[in-house]
């Protein structure tokens, strides 16, 4: 039932602007792949091209290894959950969910049975007769999912499905979507601009920037081994520093920050100054200036945010933003500290 999706050098132009500038990727059947990137980078456009709502200007789109580039949205076996849900406001929940089945010629009672089943799957059993306007945001979202689900499409698309929900509901819904996808073995392409959401739900993430694919890989790879500064920055908060890097072998690089040299995994083209990203949560702050190999510094700003402390520390290598889980003994501004950097939190990203 599920099928893979493949893009081959797909370009989308709107007059003079190029929204998608030559994108190739393959989504494996039965997986959840996320398109991640800042606003305006072309995620929605890619998604709409999979759905057939936009025609590609160049390139080929394959679903289930069949070229569907020339097919319209109606003719593709793809369903979409819209950012605004796009529930038909003049139809009941049941009619909304039945809509696709009825259009494909399924008779009324069969359609209603399938629709009830789909509603059950998203946990909305008792709501069939309501109007969409009588539902909360989260419930509307589930109706939209059920409406797409009921057609058993080979590919399901989600365009920022959670952006209209509050933070708590967002977390719950994303878990439900992920759970549903795994239970039914759906192929899902999911668009979001929220890296946490992407990390939480995806089998694979495709990071986009300015109409191009920046990097494509498993969530952990992207977070821990970003290929570019853009990805490092986008996948999580990071400090951007310049530092000297020396190639040790195929996979290891020695990075010099201030006085200390740290060996990290990574590759560089040549020895010399390079861009280095440091994840704030991997910086350990020691209140006593100290151990060898640590980076001395001075706290310039300390902020209490409930679950942890956030510090800005001035060091020889530059200002570093660090997160410290210890909230019981906060350090005041002006305090001299020693920073130890865990190798896994140091990313060599520039050439």
């Amino acid at each position, binding site marked *: 039932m599920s099928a893979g999706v493949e893009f081959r050098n797909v370009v989308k132009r709107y007059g003079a602007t190029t929204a998608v500038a030559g994108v190739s990727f393959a989504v494996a059947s039965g997986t959840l792949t996320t398109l991640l*990137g*800042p*606003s*305006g*980078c072309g*995620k*929605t456009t890619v998604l*709409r091209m999979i*759905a*057939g*709502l936009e*025609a590609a200007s160049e390139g080929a789109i394959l679903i289930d290894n069949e070229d569907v580039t*020339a097919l*319209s*949205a*109606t003719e*593709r076996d*793809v*369903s*979409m959950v*819209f*950012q*605004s*849900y*796009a*529930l*038909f*406001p*003049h139809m009941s929940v049941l009619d909304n969910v039945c*809509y*696709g089945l009825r*259009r*494909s*010629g399924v008779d009324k009672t069969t359609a209603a049975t399938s629709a009830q089943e789909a509603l059950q799957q998203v946990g909305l059993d008792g709501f069939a007769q309501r*109007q*969409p*306007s*009588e539902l909360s*945001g989260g419930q*509307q979202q589930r109706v939209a999912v059920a*409406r*797409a689900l009921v*057609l058993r499409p080979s590919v399901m*698309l989600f365009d*920022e499905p959670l*952006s*209209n929900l509050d933070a708590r509901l967002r977390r719950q819904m994303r878990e439900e979507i992920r759970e549903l996808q795994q239970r039914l073995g759906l192929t899902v392409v999911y*668009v*979001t*601009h929220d890296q946490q959401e992407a990390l939480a739900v995806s089998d694979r993430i495709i990071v986009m920037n300015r109409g191009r694919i920046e990097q494509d890989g498993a969530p952990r790879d992207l977070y821990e081994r970003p290929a570019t500064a853009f990805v490092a920055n986008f996948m999580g908060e990071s400090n951007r520093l310049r530092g000297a890097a020396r190639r040790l072998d195929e996979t290891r690089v020695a990075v010099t920050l201030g006085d200390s040299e740290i060996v990290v995994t990574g590759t560089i083209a040549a020895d010399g100054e390079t861009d280095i990203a440091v994840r704030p949560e991997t910086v350990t702050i020691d209140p006593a200036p100290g151990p060898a190999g640590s980076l001395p510094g001075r706290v310039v700003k300390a902020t209490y945010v409930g679950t942890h402390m956030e510090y800005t520390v001035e060091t020889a290598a530059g200002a570093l933003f660090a997160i410290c889980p210890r909230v019981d003994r906060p350090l005041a501004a002006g305090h001299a500290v020693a920073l130890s950097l865990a190798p896994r939190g140091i990313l060599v990203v520039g050439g």
Partner: protein
Amino acid sequence: MSRATPTRAVAAWALIGLAGFVLLPWYAQQEGVLAFDWIGGLWSHADSASGLALIAAHNRWWLAPLLPVLLASLAVGFVGGTRRQRGTTLVWLAGIGLAIFWLQALSIGLRGWNAEWLTLTLGEVGGRQVGIGIGATLVLLSLLGLLSLGLAQRGAFGGDAFVAGAMVTVVASIVLFTAWPVLRILLQAFNSSDGTFAPALLLDRLSTAKIWSLRCLTGDGRCGVAWNTLFLALCCGAGTTMLGLAFALIVTRTGFRMKRTLRVLTVLPIITPPFVIGLGLILVFGRSGVVNQALDAWFGIAPTRWIYGFQGVFLAQLFAFTPVAFLVLIGVVEGVSPTLEEASQTLRADRWDTFRTVSLPLMKPGLANAFLVGFIESIADFGNPIVLGGDYGVLSTEIYFAVVGAQLDYGRAAALALLLLAFALGAFFLQRRLVGTRSYATISGKGDSGLPTPMPAGLRRLAQWIALPWAGFTALLYGFVLVGGFVKIWGRDHTPTLQHYAKAFAVESGPNGLIWTGAAWGSFWTTVKLAAIAAPLTALLGLLAAWLLVRQRFVGRSTLEFATMLSFAVPGTVIGVAYVFTFNVPPLEITGTALILVLCFVFRNMPVGVRAGMASMSQIDRSLDEASATLRGRAWQTLAHVVLPLMRPAMVAALVYGFVRAVTTVSAVVFLVTAEYELATTFIVLRVINGDYGLAIAYSCALILLMLAAILLIQLLVGQRRLGRRAAPAPIAARAGA
């Protein structure tokens, strides 16, 4: 899946065309096709022969190429090839077929070749052609259907045959029933009466003193109709704008309590035939009107015909078009942001300064727009000038007399129409530029919590002094019209009577049921029937066009939008002349039929449907359409199940407008009515011109009642949009970025 495959659709359309070509008479039938008297002569008689018979037995060689075109199209339905290849072939075939169809239809007419040079170069054609009949019509439809399928298969319009078909329908009908007739009549301005091209004639026709004379300024004669038209329109534009502004200010900026009553005023002219106001004025100021009678009785002043002329027409137009200006200006006045006015007041400006330096400048574009609307309404008006104009001729009446009177001079009518069209389009373009560059718009999505500043006292009093007596007088006019229907002879014998209503609407019961003996019944039923046929067609075509314009992406979208709006700016008189001239001769010989009246109604009023549809459709989030598409809904299913149900108000508006305007229009149809198909308005106008006021009044009142009933009925039938009380999901635009 239950859908017809594209190839089957191709075969079906081709077969329809072939059936029309082989089994049905090609030309129009004298007795109508439903008389079926043509069956016997389908092969043998040239008049009733089918297309095939015409080629084979009647020497109409020019029809021959259509047969292979249709056969080849049928073949396309059965051969292989890619979708795209088939599409291209079909587009070519249909294009060639349409070209041949029109070429022969336009060049061979009642007397053989239509143009002399064709006879000279090609010799006698050896046959004549009357208008196209059912057979030819089917062939034409089939070619258009094949063209749509071809375009869709080539991938145009998202490959959707329904969208392509809708597109072809809309474009073909606008070309056929608006662009073509208007161009025909305009070209006629360059032709001599026997059809030869003589551009110098246009200069002659346009440079007569009757059009351009300025002698009224020097006091020795009348001015030309062009000046009359322009002067009247300027006065009307200025007057209606001023009155409209006064009303708008009172309604929005004072605590005036009878706002609802004033709003009713805006509905009245929509459901009133345009000359009813003129009629009311005659009852007040005419020779036997109350004013003259009173002057005569009290002061012995002999009754005058004072009301007939500029004064009368001007007054009537002021009454008739002020509500339109009011509607335009109420939006403008409400659009001035109260916050700006409050800001002005915190900057030490008093109310009057604020009005003068902030509010009024902000309203300027809106005022100019209202002025142009009044201007355009005035030059297009026919009903009031014909009833009240007297010696004061304007272009629309002059065109009428050029065609209807003893003159029957289409060349002159065409030249005058050209002039009228030039005025109308000039004003139209000016207005579009104004509205298009409305950079002052102060309505925004942001909440504006300011309170409208009350008007300065002097201004308020002025507005009230202008507007309230005027409103009272309007009510009085309608009152007189109402009463006028119930007295014996207005001005002379005021005994109450029902005789006018009896004369118009008497019903007797005869041996075989009711006999409609009243004088008005004939035209009344014709009007109701034709308007009832036209209204749904108007709404359908208008909404279809709106849907294409708002929801489909295609090249030439803005051109199509412009064309539909443009046809609205063409004055009714011009359309009327154009229709009677163009459809008087083959190939579309429909003058004198009910069909031409229906077509005229539909294409005159369609732009209203387009506007209403576009406005309401752009409020429906596009992602609803897209959701339907990803849920396997075809374009027509999306239209039927999602878009239309959400557009009920627009449908009501289009239906009401289509019906009401069909009933009330005079200018266009005055050229098209016949004894057989007389319409209510033209019937009444003739009564008024003959001084038979009682009957005219009774009939007008009945019409107003009819339209109120129709509006209620349509509201009831189509009903309101059924949405839950809470708004639809947060209206985030479909393209909102991350």
